């Protein structure tokens, strides 16, 4: 089962290295890790997905919390949350018939074509990982030339807490 952890960390050099070093050191197996800016200028946010059959998510959270630059770690797997994965998928389009067919599929998945080339086009898809997986499955027979996915980012619904301020 997949568990999703949110870690708010200080935005300063070396913090990602500390987190990655911890995973290696403790032999934690991580499915995905995304890092980005937050609403606070000096705070970054990591979304970490752990396969709990292989790595104990609670151990990951406890050890992350021990890093001095990690402000607060929260396991949001059981909370109502919005999770998103963004994918850019470059697909082969040898002829106009294929292109039309692709457009229709993209429409159905509420994805977008963001670039059209002579023999390829790029699809941008945003959604849950399952939805993006579904689109990838359907596109694969057309010939996927290149693909990049961000990995999961997540946010708890409602008035969020977890700011790491002293209670």
């Amino acid at each position, binding site marked *: 089962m997949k568990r999703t952890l949110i870690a708010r960390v200080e935005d300063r050099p070396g913090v990602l290295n500390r987190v990655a070093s911890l995973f290696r050191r403790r032999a934690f197996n991580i499915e995905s890790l995304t890092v980005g800016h937050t609403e606070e200028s000096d705070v970054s946010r990591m979304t970490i997905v752990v396969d709990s059959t292989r790595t104990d998510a609670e151990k990951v959270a406890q050890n992350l919390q021990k890093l001095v630059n990690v402000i607060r770690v929260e396991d949001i797997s059981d909370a109502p949350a919005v999770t998103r994965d963004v994918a850019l998928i470059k697909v082969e389009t040898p002829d106009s018939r294929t292109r039309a067919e692709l457009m229709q599929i993209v429409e159905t998945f509420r994805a977008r074509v963001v670039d059209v080339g002579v023999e390829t086009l790029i699809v941008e898809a945003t959604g849950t990982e399952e939805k993006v997986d579904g689109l990838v499955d359907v596109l694969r027979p057309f010939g996927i030339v290149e693909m990049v996915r961000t990995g999961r980012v997540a946010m708890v619904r409602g008035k969020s807490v977890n700011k790491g301020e*002293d209670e």
Partner: protein
Amino acid sequence: MMLTGAQIVWEMLHHEGVEVVFGIPGGAIMHTYHPRSEYGIRHVLVRHEQGAAHAADGYARASGKVGVAIATSGPGATNLVTGIATAMMDSSPIVCITGQVASPLIGTDAFQETDITGITLPITKHNYLVTDVDDLASVIHEAFYLACHGRPGPVLIDLPKDVQQAQAEFVPPVEEVRLPGHAYIGVTDPSDAIGRAAELIDSSARPVLLVGHGVSMAEAEGVLRGFAERIDSPVAVTLLGKGGFPASHALYLGMMGMHGDAQANRAIQEADLLIALGMRFDDRVTGDLSRYAPHARKIHVDLDAAELNKIVAVDVAVHADLRRALSDLISLVNKRDREEWRETVRGWWDESRAVDVINQHRKDMELTMPHVIDAIRQSTHGEAIVVTDVGQHQMWAAQYYRFDRPNAFITSGGLGTMGFGLPAAIGAQIARPDAEVWVVVGDGGLQMTIQELATVVQEQLPIKIALCDNGYLGMVRQWQEMFYDKNYESTRLVNPDFVKLAEAYGIRAWCASDQDQAESAIDEAREHPGPVLIDFQVVREGEGGNVYPMVPSGAALHEMIRRPLPTKVGT
């Protein structure tokens, strides 16, 4: 007030209450060394940076204060690594300050450049590369805070040469360190877990308290004693837990684990409840995990949440400061008299004494290290600070010197660092100048940091060195004797004449090879005001040359190899 980075270092060390630092100067740190004498902080010049880290560690363990080690960049910094890892494994609060090449040169493979913050990332609690002299004072303040708050540990500050030279307006940081992430550790309310723990304790017939290093670090010895007496539970200690509960107390059960006391291991295997306090179920403590304490429910109290349920799945995990948790527990548990359990355990004690303890009165035996340790204990009335190296002599020191007070047994537990003993003893003696410090070392480990004999002399430290000289890397040899067909592969040591060697350093030294000589050598050493080395030439193999009992690797705790029946010498 405008100061250089170098001056700020000493201002801040003074501000943090530092009286002594251990180190060696070098190219990238000499700028910091230059103004030291103006600040009245003592510098102990070691002979190898590993010695600086171990000495800082020994100082910290003996004093309860933060120990400080200083080294230059590159090889100076990498030489600290073993000492830092040792402090990390045993949660010892030290701050290491390393010189670094000037900021513009970082990353260019400059002379004596090494990425010491990268190297020490997994073996420090935290580390810093200071790039702006304006940050220096607050970084040092934060480093000292981190080293000794929460679960203690080593912190390293890497200081580029240009930062040492640059000037900044110095304002001593007065405000409290504010680290939201670090402060978060321990904010969960443990009262629910403590309530459940109390219920388990009340319903237990055969409890055992497991006391680790955390007890003395939390200064919880007093409340622990009251707690153990209230619930009438025997108390087993880990290697680093020694002194956390007095060995002379009626409820004391001895040491647990691989070379622990048989009655302690048996009690753990027969217990219906383990109450683990500030210990971490190290593999040397549990033996075969799948058969560890099979009848016992388990309560684990620790300050570090990551230790809870790490090795042993427990019934109640209490994430709390030990002193607070025990004070809360005392008021919740019923006063009990568990006479039946006490009597059972007492029976095991008597059996252990007869089997495992080398008979101290048999004068016909050759000299063994247990005899030596026991003689030191008798002569010092159990009141010395005992520092050890790692190996057989370490286990014998743990088994035969009984500790009633905390911070009196200083040893490398988690990392098992040979070479720790002598430099750690230097730190301990400097921390406690009036205490009698005995360092028990093997002939293998002593030679890993033997150069620190010069430091002992230069600093005029009256350390008494008890050398367990058996001509082997003894613990490895013991395993070879027991499990590798007596194939003593690469463990035989051709040693120097340790007496002459010590004398060459200016240390009084002599040999002892039988029990009478050993006893008089110990008395003589104690009368000598300066440092002494006694070369105890002890039995090398067999009954008197091996540490018993022993839980072999892969065995359960109760499957101990016991001392074989004594063989008479000379027959």
